[in-house]
């Protein structure tokens, strides 16, 4: 593969890999703490699938000669990360090792909006010019069907229930949308990604996302809050939440990066 195209491919794969790596981490912090036991089993399964997706993307990068998948996942610093800010945000106040006070409304709003975006990206990636990526997208798509159904059910159920739940969902959706600006962004080198036909354009995907979520929101009588653009995670602009997450994710690996674990 020619050099400019390779860089574009690497950028895109890092975005995809880092997204699911952090998304899975935030999901796994909920382990044992979900609103009921059945949900704990279901959402931990989704977190596990998502870690599997991240691993597949990191593996593609390893095959491109970028270093081992584990090294890419565990050692890159915050400013080198290309995930959307949306997935790095904490689940609520408190560290998962102590007594955190996580917000299930935020979990549902974030997971639904993110998963719908992921589904739209995966559908586009099935036609990627990079065949190994297209083939990974086909595999991920099968699991994603269930993830999306799961979070859409929660989203509509909570919005259709008590006033408390509705208020909490409104507040959570506002937080999610404030961080949503970089979800479909490919970063400052995005033009190369689109030119290489690795995936369709940012705006095409964003329009599809609007088209998919609008009927759901209309049915629930919800107005979508404004999308914020404060930071672009694709360009390494992140919050301190990401530093803390990376310190935890790499804690044991970084004890000895040459050891076999």
């Amino acid at each position: 593969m020619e050099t400019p195209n390779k860089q574009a491919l690497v950028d895109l794969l890092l975005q995809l890999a880092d997204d699911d790596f952090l998304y899975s981490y935030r999901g796994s912090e909920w382990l044992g703490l979900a609103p009921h036991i059945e949900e704990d089993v279901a959402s931990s399964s989704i977190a596990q699938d998502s870690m599997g997706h991240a691993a597949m993307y990191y593996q593609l990068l390893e095959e491109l000669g970028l270093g081992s998948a584990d090294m890419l996942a565990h050692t890159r610093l915050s400013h080198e990360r290309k995930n959307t800010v949306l997935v790095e945000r904490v689940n609520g106040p408190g560290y998962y090792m102590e007594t955190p006070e996580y917000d299930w409304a935020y979990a549902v709003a974030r997971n639904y909006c993110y998963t719908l975006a992921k589904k739209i990206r995966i559908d586009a990636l099935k036609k990627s010019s990079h065949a190994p990526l297209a083939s990974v997208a086909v595999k991920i798509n099968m699991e994603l069907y269930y993830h999306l159904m799961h979070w859409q059910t929660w989203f509509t159920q909570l919005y259709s229930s008590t006033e408390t739940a509705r208020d909490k969902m409104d507040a959570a959706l506002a937080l999610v949308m404030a961080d949503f600006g970089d979800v479909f962004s490919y970063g400052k080198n995005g033009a190369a990604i689109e030119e290489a036909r690795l995936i369709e354009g940012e705006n095409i995907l964003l329009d599809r996302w609007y088209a998919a979520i609008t009927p759901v929101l209309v049915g629930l009588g919800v107005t979508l809050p404004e999308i914020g653009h404060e930071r672009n995670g694709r360009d390494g602009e992140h919050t301190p939440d990401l530093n803390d997450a990376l310190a935890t994710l790499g804690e044991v690996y970084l004890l000895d990066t040459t050891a076999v674990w």
Partner: protein
Amino acid sequence: MQPYTPLFEREALTEEQKLERFIARIENGDKIEADDWMPEEYRLTLIKLISMHGISEIMGALPEKEWVPKAPSLRRKLGIMAKVQDEMGHGQLLLRVVEDLLTPYGKTRGDLMQDLFSGDLKFHNVFHMPTKSWADAGLIGWLVDGAAIITQTNMLGASYGPYARALQRICAEEVFHAQHGESIIMALAEGTPDQKAMIQESLDRWWESLLMFFGPASKETTGTSKQDITIKYKIRTKTNEELRQSFFTKYIPRVLSLGLTIPDPTLRFDEEQQLWIYAQPDWDEFKKIIRGEGPRSKERLALRRTSYENNAWVREALAETMA
């Protein structure tokens, strides 16, 4: 065809006759089902045993989840995520079995959670302990789940059908967990001096808890023990001490083969008695731990309680959509 009516319901039997027939059934190897008549002592013993087992699976997720994000490779992260998810699944399966047993008392899963928070419902001693290193994640999978396989295999033939069937599935998964733990431990044992030291330190800390896991040898040790009743009703077959001896026989050679030292200099196999001789753990400490005064008891319960209270609005919202 007429729907099947159990014999007990077809005839007006005295309580004594019902009990006689019940005992005859379990002596015969029949399985008792949720809607069958059963003596209250049997029902209460099952509720206590299975709710403790179920809630221990759920509370057990808390120490292990501490290592889920920290697992030192993508493969290990996936492995431990799958494992902790299985444990929650076991908890769910077991609580469903208890819910049926609770029906005559009008109690539900919510009541079990309240019993947990009030301290009436206990959970296994091992899950009151702190975790300190990645080796603990391996050791829990390898030896705690290994110990659990031994106690649960002992109940696979339990006279209560729903519990026996749940255990079939649980034991099958626990075998994977023990392999997952063993694989983590093997990698550390083959690794750097620091990695090896990490397992030894972990084993030293967990040894007493592992001995306690099987419970006291007799009720004289701690004042109470349910083992006599559970054996009488054919829920289990072996005593606590027999199970602990099986654990030694299975795991001591494996521990030693990894170059680890058992932190009990008095431990030996007595050929004459065909028994392992070992230093007793501190059974007063055991009583304190299961009373909820263990090193991490309060924090783990607080975590469970806080999340339960924080999510109360979700349960209310779901109840509203069901209404």
